[in-house]
């Protein structure tokens, strides 16, 4: 049962690669569909649609032949890039911008933006600044807080960091991300 839950969690936290699958499958289908037409026409002894398989093969086998090398290289670059993108989609983990929080009753998955909005609200109240003066970005193992103090009232980064860590503990983010606080040197006019 535990491994089953872990699998569900992993499915929520990583991408299933469906868009890449759609792209790859459509490329293969289009190429095969064209080849199918030519092969079928050939099998039925009909005239080719664009070029007969022999014509294609003679063009491929004497490459580069009379084809412009730059055009050939450009085509190769295009095909190679598509291949590289699909390959990297297949090999990389595909982490989504989500976190898993500890929870007894269920699997709890949270969008990073929701987490960031909650932390920003806490950072605002701890620093005593208005809306728009605290910017929180949540990464995999790191939380970055960017504060713009109101002119004339300095901010104590340590107390904001403590508040953020307390909020992370209250949310039970596991493992707890590291908190980085940056207070910009120039103040803004408070709201």
């Amino acid at each position, binding site marked *: 049962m535990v491994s*089953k*839950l872990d699998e*569900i969690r992993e*499915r*929520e936290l990583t991408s*299933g*690669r*469906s868009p*890449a*699958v*759609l792209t*790859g*499958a459509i490329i*293969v*289908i289009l190429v095969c*569909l064209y*080849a*199918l037409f030519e*092969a*079928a026409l*050939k*099998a039925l002894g009909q005239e080719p649609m664009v070029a007969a398989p022999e014509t294609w*093969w003679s063009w491929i*086998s*004497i*490459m*580069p032949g009379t084809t412009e090398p730059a055009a*050939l*290289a450009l*085509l*190769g*670059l*295009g*095909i190679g*890039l*598509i*291949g*590289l*993108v*699909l*390959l990297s989609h*297949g*090999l990389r983990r595909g982490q989504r911008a989500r976190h898993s929080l500890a*929870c007894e*009753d*269920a*699997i*709890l*998955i*949270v*969008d990073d933006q*929701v*987490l960031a*909005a909650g932390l920003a609200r*806490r950072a605002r109240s701890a620093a005593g600044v208005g*809306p728009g003066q605290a910017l929180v970005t949540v990464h995999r193992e790191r939380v970055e807080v960017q504060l713009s103090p109101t002119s004339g009232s300095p901010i104590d980064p340590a107390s904001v960091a403590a508040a953020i860590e307390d*909020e992370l503990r*209250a*949310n039970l*983010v596991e493992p707890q991300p590291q908190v980085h606080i940056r207070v910009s040197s120039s103040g803004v006019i408070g709201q």
Partner: protein
Amino acid sequence: MNQTPRLVNRILLILIGFLLLLCGAHLMLTAFAADYAQRWQVIASGAGAWFGNLLTINTLPGQKDSWVWILIAAFLICIILLMLWWITVQGRGRGGDYVSKYFADENTPGRIEISPNAVDQMLRHFLGRRSDIISINISVWNLLPEAGLRVKVQPRKGTAPGPLGRDVARAARLAQEALGVSGPVLVYVVVGTRSRFARTERVI
């Protein structure tokens, strides 16, 4: 909670990506590396001669073209069908009723079906009136041995997601207890367009 065949996805993507990469590298090399192009022409003419031979052996007397083309066409049809299957199995696994059980009672045997709407209503009842939730959305997913429940919660901007998510999970657990089921529950706290643009605080 869907049944996307992730391993198949990965393997086929790696295969297709690798083949396309190989194809692209080959085109670029033939364009610029003269001795590579020369070697390719030697190999290709050998392969072409072999295939031409294969065609002539397998041509029925009196026919213009070989029946190998029919085999090739059939093979291509198989690949196309396989690709279509591959596209259709993405994101599958959404279930209908949350509970669908047959009870063979002596007096009144019958099937009990409980739709996701009922679970939705129960969840709203257990959660009560909450100002920090904008919307709740429930979907049921076919899992073995018991159906999975996916609760999508959209909170108001700035809400701490941990306590909210745990409250929703507890409510879902209560609903499950009332229904007598124990499948896996997933609570997913999402950011949506409504919570992105809505005001942070609101007078209730």
